[in-house]
């Protein structure tokens, strides 16, 4: 082989190599890391879906200000699932196949997470669920994690604290009425409640469900009143929570302790409108501005969230879901940074085996991807005044009664005493 031909051969080979390398889709430093999700931006769950998305956007903005993940900016790609589970498979298929997202998180709520599960399992995705109740109970998919602090037994998470509190009161209440909507979450909560009621030995005097589109709750409340229960456990969605509470005041229903699993009473507009009618209700919650709940970073989060939420017309206080949606992204971001890559399995292994410091406190996942130890709070509305939204920014209006380690106040018992 003569030297010029060998030289030409080397040059050509080098050029081919360079061209080939150029064709391989290698992520460059400037390429964003894409995180995809469907979210309820319209429809029944949008009152929570929009604040959740806002919290995720805040995380994205903050992480990008710090230089992104792995030196790459983060981009959120989201579509409106319209609170319609039928849209979820299409949304995630598009995110994965067309938008080529690197990571996914779920939309908000049990019903919208359920259709994502088979896709996640089939494609071996790591998924952090946003407030899904027992979505992984059946699948036991190891790479699914769930951010609401319902704990390893989500079905009983609201009932456990509520009935434990009831059982501690003197004289101990004896009879219980349970009521809830004919929908996924209330049904699960009622199943859990029945189990806990049996455990404490209370006598059930009323156990009924109602259609979610019910307009008038007074007949239901009157029927409950006729059974004269000591305890009333309600598992309801926002419109029925308001309907039940108003009807209870109109009918004069005053069990010794009332509340439990009423969704919606945590939302700013409803708290503001219901005002003093909330007094005495003992209900589940996930975050309240009490001293025991001030985890590192949470105050800064609300400083950023609240003005943006006011501007966008979503949950102004944002205590219920937004901190947890933000924490979900913190965990995902932490896992990407620590594993130094976007490998779904490595990320899942890391999330499964580590404890994370988030704005909602230390998070460690356990059985079925739920929090290893549940932390559903029981709070009581106390001395709430009418038409004053500012009061809810201060401690004392919703003291934590349960669990013991986060307790920040004492229960006013019976319910009638809290109305005075």
């Amino acid at each position, binding site marked *: 082989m003569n030297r010029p031909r060998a030289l030409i051969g080397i040059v050509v080979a080098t050029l081919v190599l360079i061209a080939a390398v150029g064709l391989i889709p290698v992520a460059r430093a400037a390429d964003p890391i894409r995180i995809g999700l469907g979210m309820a*931006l*319209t*429809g*029944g769950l*949008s*009152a929570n*879906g*929009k604040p959740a998305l806002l919290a995720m956007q805040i995380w994205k903005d903050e992480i990008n200000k710090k230089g992104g993940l792995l030196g790459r900016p983060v981009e959120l790609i989201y579509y409106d699932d319209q*609170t319609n589970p039928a849209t979820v498979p299409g949304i995630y298929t598009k995110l994965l196949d067309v938008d080529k997202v690197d990571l996914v998180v779920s939309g908000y709520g049990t019903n919208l997470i359920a259709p994502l599960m088979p896709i996640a399992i089939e494609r071996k995705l790591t998924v952090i669920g946003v407030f899904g109740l027992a979505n992984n109970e059946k699948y036991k998919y190891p790479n699914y994690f769930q951010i609401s602090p319902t704990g390893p037994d989500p079905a009983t998470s609201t009932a456990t604290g509520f009935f434990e509190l009831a059982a501690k009161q003197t004289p101990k209440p004896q009879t219980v009425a349970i009521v809830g909507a*004919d929908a996924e979450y209330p049904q699960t909560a009622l199943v859990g409640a029945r189990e806990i009621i049996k455990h404490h030995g209370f006598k059930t005097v009323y156990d*009924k*469900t*109602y*259609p979610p*589109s*019910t*307009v*008038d709750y*007074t*007949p*239901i409340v*009157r*029927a409950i009143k*006729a*059974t004269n229960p000591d305890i009333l456990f309600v598992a309801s969605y*926002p*419109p029925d929570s*308001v*309907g039940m509470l*108003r*009807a209870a*005041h*109109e*009918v*004069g229903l005053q069990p010794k302790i009332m509340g439990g699993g009423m969704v*919606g009473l945590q*939302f*700013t*507009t*409803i708290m503001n*409108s219901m*005002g003093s*009618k909330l007094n005495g209700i003992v209900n589940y919650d996930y975050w309240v501005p009490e001293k025991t709940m001030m985890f590192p970073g949470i105050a800064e989060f609300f400083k950023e969230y609240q003005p943006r939420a006011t501007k*966008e*017309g*979503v*949950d102004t206080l944002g205590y219920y879901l937004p901190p947890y949606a933000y924490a979900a992204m913190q965990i995902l971001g932490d896992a990407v940074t620590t594993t130094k890559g976007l490998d779904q399995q490595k990320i899942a292994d890391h999330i499964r085996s580590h404890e994370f410091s988030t704005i909602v406190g230390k998070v460690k996942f356990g059985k079925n991807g739920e929090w290893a130890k549940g932390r559903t709070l029981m709070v009581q509305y106390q001395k709430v005044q*009418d038409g004053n939204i500012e009061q809810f920014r201060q401690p004392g209006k919703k003291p934590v009664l349960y669990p013991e380690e986060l307790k920040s106040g004492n229960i006013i018992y019976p319910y009638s005493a809290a109305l005075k």
Partner: protein
Amino acid sequence: MFSWDLLANAVVAGLLLGGFYAAVSLGISLIFGLLDIANIAQPAFLILGSYAAYVMNEAYGLDPILTGILFTPVFYLLGALVYRVYYGSFERRGEESLRGLVFFFGVLFIIEVSLSLKYGVDYRLVQTGYTGKSIEFGGVGIAFRYLVPCVVGVAMTIALYLFLGRTFYGRAIMAVSQDQGALRLMGADPVQIKTIAFGIGIAAASLSGALLISIAPVIPSTDRDYIGRMFAITVLGGMGSIGGTLVAAVILGVVESLMSTFFGPSWSLAVSFGILLAALAVRPAGLFGR
């Protein structure tokens, strides 16, 4: 668990609920029952009425019912405009059946999404001076939150009944529902009459929407809960019968209330719609149908 007290309370609660259902269904009774226009967007106008009441209550502290009355001219004009668009685009060309339905679906979604964009998706509710108050007559409690909408609903029904039977335009609306061709031969313009009727139907939504938000919290998609009830009441009452609408609304209200009290609230809607099916099997034109 039966007691006469409970029974009396359930019946009274049902009557009150029926009055409210009548208010909600009057618009559709006029538009669908008399004009044969499947205005599937009517519940969205209802929610629009709720938001108008909410906004005025937040800004000026106005009572929702007062807002409902004040906004009726605005809703009337809006209704007249929607009908003109519908007429020009579909009815005039004889394409009203399926394409018209799609048009109203479109209107429904536009209203829903516009409300979401403007006011967000938080639950909105209005507290009035009478919310939470009730009176009692011999063991029967009456919540003002339902009494006021019931009284307004019955008043709306009577007013519409008298308007249709006693006024020139009312009779013209009745005539246009019976025979448009004959009306045209008499020198009247059916399109003009239908515009007025449609406008009145939408104006009714202003007031009934205000009643709705004083009873329960509302989000833009709450309209979907009312589509079924509105059309069921109109059909059960008899197409075009205003009095029938009130009777059907009261039947549904009382049945829902009795079921909720004595047999479990889960059955209330199923039994209500079961009654609708049974009634239609016996009287296909509805209870007071022509």
